[in-house]
């Protein structure tokens, strides 16, 4: 038999002025199960709480209803009070008779009636409340960072700095990402390599950081605090532990005609290669698509020249399994492919390049040693046209609907650098808008226009046509002067939109995190939780969440690190006990609940059951991981059999409230 205590708060006159609190207490005292019903001046005060605690002890209460202000105000207060008196805190219900009653109604009679009904609903609900215990789930004190660009590196360094082990998984042979390919950075024009490579070295030398380069995440199981991740270490045919990075193999390799991806295919590398001089780890990798030894067993030069015997043609993909408490996604971005943009002649004219290609063309470690030359004939270009928003802010399906954010600034940078180094070169920039929000950004852009005389033209480039004389005709419109232009250019640079890396979507599936239609990871809250995914324990770093420049990326990387550290600091996580649970005997195994769960908290397993007809059967049933479930209840409605229910807001509790209100 339930023994319920009802406590009606006056809240000074806040409630008592419009609600006859004594009448409410009196009316509720007649409800079934109610053994004590009292009113008090300030229930949340020390002495008010004492009243509740004493009643719990004195009457051996099995449930408490507080008629007071919103549960958003003091639910916790009263739960704690109940707990301190030995009553499970989840046996407390609040009837909101202030914000939702006394403050909005003027008529004392109707406000009192309503307060009584709200009280009855709370009593009806508390009858069905079950004592709940917040579960604890241990936290593995190790983090995984997926992606080794500047975002991943920064996150890993910050987490390691806080004293936790962290692994970086990078799919390329070296960490560094896109920033390693960039020449200079805006708006300070400092050298990207000069600021990035020390970080790369720092990461490699940090004892707490393990770098799995040339590796991919192949499976993720588990949940916040306790993920089990399988990492595929792709065969690089070189023993990482032996290779000293001397580079002799790369010099001797006879297969020298492999397009060099680091230089955007603008020059070649060998089949065994180290992507760039400052690569971390500085270890050679054999490209099986080109290595003659791997392809037809004839060559073996690298193996012969390697003094440490690091070459291993028989290496295969290896899989390692590791447990992590937190996962940070830092999969970054890529410029979109431009092969569909025939109007810009990208596919047919080597002198039409993307901005990232231009970075390499201008880089001292690039194909031309830092001298800007046309790819086609290695001559110095005198007229360069930049085209903005290629594939950004696009309505059609070729491009992306969003602004890629970084193009305006890097184009200003490119224009400025070219004008600085080659004052004889005319630079035109065709833009839709110039977007320069950011510290010192607009000043930077104005310098390009005012100091460096870059020709900014608001307008669209209609067509780029390579001409027989090697020049390029750029046909464009100037929207401000409303005229058609033809520019006889030597080079055209396209500011290609950026998009999330292709590996992001399968990864999101593995992580059960959400993505938007553009494949950017969705943050848990766009304003308040921008570096967390909605899936507990998965954090977002860098451009995988949306287009970002370097400082923003680094800021977010550190923020994601801070969130991950906050999780790793805990020995265990206290779970919200108001979570869904499945009645296995009723579950059909249909997967409807799993499909609506935003957290991936529901998994299925085949279990053996003794059936009502005394047979045994293997049945597929859902189980909810209470550490991952956030308690929204979407599954409870998706479930047709009613096997899914929600602690604290069960079907029967809500229906009891409905009944009490309607009767």
């Amino acid at each position, binding site marked *: 038999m339930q023994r319920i205590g009802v406590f009606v708060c006056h809240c000074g006159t806040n409630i008592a002025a419009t609600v006859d609190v004594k009448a409410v207490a009196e009316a509720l005292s007649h409800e079934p199960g109610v053994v004590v019903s009292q009113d008090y001046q300030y229930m949340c005060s020390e002495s008010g709480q004492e009243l509740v605690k004493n009643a719990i002890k004195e009457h051996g209460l099995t449930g408490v209803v507080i008629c007071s202000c919103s549960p958003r105000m003091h639910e916790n207060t009263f739960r704690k009070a109940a707990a301190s008196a030995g009553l499970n805190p989840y046996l407390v219900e609040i009837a909101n008779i202030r914000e939702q009653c006394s403050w909005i109604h003027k008529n004392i009679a109707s406000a009192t009636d309503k307060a009584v009904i709200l009280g009855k609903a709370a009593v009806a609900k508390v009858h069905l409340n079950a004592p709940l215990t917040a579960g604890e789930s241990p936290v593995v004190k190790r983090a995984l960072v997926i992606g080794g660009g500047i975002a991943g590196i920064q996150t890993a360094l910050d987490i390691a700095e806080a004293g936790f082990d962290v692994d970086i998984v990078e799919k390329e042979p070296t960490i560094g990402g896109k920033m390693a390919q960039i020449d200079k950075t805006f708006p300070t024009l400092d050298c990207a390599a000069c600021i990035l490579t020390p970080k790369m070295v720092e990461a490699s030398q940090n004892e707490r950081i393990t770098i799995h380069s040339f590796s991919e995440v192949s499976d993720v199981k588990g949940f916040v605090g306790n993920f089990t991740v399988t990492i595929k270490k792709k065969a690089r045919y070189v023993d990482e532990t032996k290779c000293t990075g001397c580079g002799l193999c790369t010099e001797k390799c006879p297969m020298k005609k492999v397009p060099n991806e680091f230089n955007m295919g603008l020059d070649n590398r060998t089949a065994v290669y180290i992507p760039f001089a400052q690569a971390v780890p500085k270890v050679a990798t054999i490209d099986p698509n080109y290595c003659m030894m791997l392809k037809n067993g004839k060559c073996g030069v690298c193996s012969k020249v390697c003094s440490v015997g690091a070459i291993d043609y028989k290496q295969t993909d290896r899989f390692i399994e590791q447990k992590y408490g937190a996962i940070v996604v830092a999969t970054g971005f890529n410029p979109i492919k431009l092969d569909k943009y025939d109007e810009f002649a990208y596919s047919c004219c080597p002198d039409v390049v993307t901005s990232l290609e231009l970075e390499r063309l201008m880089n001292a470690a690039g194909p031309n040693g830092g001298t800007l030359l046309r790819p086609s004939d290695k001559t110095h270009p005198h007229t360069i046209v930049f085209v903005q928003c290629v594939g950004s802010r696009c309505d059609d399906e070729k491009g992306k609907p969003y602004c890629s954010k970084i193009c305006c600034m890097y184009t200003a940078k490119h224009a400025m650098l070219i004008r600085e180094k080659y004052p004889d070169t005319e630079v035109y920039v065709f833009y839709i808008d110039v977007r320069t929000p950011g510290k010192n950004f607009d000043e930077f852009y104005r310098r390009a226009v005012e100091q460096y005389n870059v020709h900014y033209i608001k307008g669209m480039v209609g067509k780029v046509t390579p001409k027989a004389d090697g020049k390029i005709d750029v046909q464009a419109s100037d929207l401000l002067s409303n005229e058609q232009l033809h520019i006889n250019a030597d080079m055209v640079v396209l500011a290609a939109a950026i998009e999330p890396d292709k590996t992001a979507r399968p990864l999101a599936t593995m992580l059960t995190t959400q993505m938007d239609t553009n494949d950017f990871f969705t943050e848990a809250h766009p304003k308040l939780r921008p570096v967390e995914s909605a899936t507990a324990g998965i954090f977002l770093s860098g451009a995988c969440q949306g287009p970002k420049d370097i400082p923003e990326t680094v800021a977010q990387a550190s923020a994601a690190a801070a969130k991950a550290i906050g999780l790793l600091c805990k020995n265990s996580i206290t779970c919200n006990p108001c979570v869904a649970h499945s009645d296995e005997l009723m579950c059909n*195994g*249909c997967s409807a609940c799993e499909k609506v769960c935003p957290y991936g908290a529901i998994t299925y397993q085949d279990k053996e059951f003794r059936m009502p007809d005394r047979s045994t059967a293997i049945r597929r049933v859902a189980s909810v991981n209470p550490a991952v479930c956030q308690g929204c209840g979407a599954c409870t409605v998706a479930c*047709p059999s009613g096997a899914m229910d929600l602690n604290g807001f069960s*079907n029967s509790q809500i229906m009891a409230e409905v009944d009490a209100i309607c009767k």
Partner: protein
Amino acid sequence: MQEAMIKRAKELLADGTVNRVMGWKKGEFAYDTTPAVFETAEEIDRDFIYNDFTQANQSKYLIKESRKEGKILALLKPCDTYSFNQLVKEHRIIRENVYVIGIPGGPKIDIEKIKAKGITGITNVKNEDYTLKIETIYGVETMPFYEAVSVKCESCKSKKHVVYDELIGEGGDILDSNRFDMVEKLENMTSQERYDFWRGELSRCIRCNACRNVCPACTCENCVFDNPKSGIDQKAAADSFEENMFHIIRAFHVAGRCTDCGECSRVCPQNIPLHLLNRKFIKDINCLYGEYQAGADTTSKAPLTDYRTDDCEPSVVHERGAE
């Protein structure tokens, strides 16, 4: 057709591909057929039947049958394949344990439609070039075949088998059916007219649960209406509310999962057009969230476990024409 099915079923039994055959068994009269599992060629020769009256959708039996030892042969009409697929999608049928032969479907005949003509004492029904020759103890009667076509076949949605291991006879296409006509007609009525219509229909409900128990989408281990813990369990409609409640919730629970096989209306002893409730949901889903056919595949996201950020608001209901 029956001969071809028997021949193939016996072959598959003989070569060990399957150890059981799900089919229809002859009954007492020319028109009553019972879904049955055959284990031997002799049983098949003796009792197997496939004719104008083999209407029953056999997919639901395969939930149980696919969990037994060995593989079973299922002979599925086009409409049955949708139900089958949907059950595979919901992990209710274990696909590997079923060998599916797609067989031609209807139109099937509903004996009730013949009896509704006042024809009784029926001893045999023959389809002679789409004229039914009905032999009775009171003499021979005839009626056009199409007048006896069952409700579920009248608005056939598809002649296409969406899943099969092999076909007997030819495969068909998805049809341009008129199945939403009646729903539309009701939608165009006033609220009061619709209310009166449904009261008239649903008040006949005797809560025999035939609609639920035959429904291939209603496969809950324990239906909410049988489960005292659900808070809405009921054994009989003690009030008109409960008649409405049962059918609304049942339709809602199968919304996005109902393949429109029409079994609910076929089995209703009170001839309540229950399929109209399901079709209303199907029509709404098609109009509001894009064409969706439950059971057409095993991978697509069901409309109620999916969403688009630009879905319409429920106010579309309130803004739809006059009440």
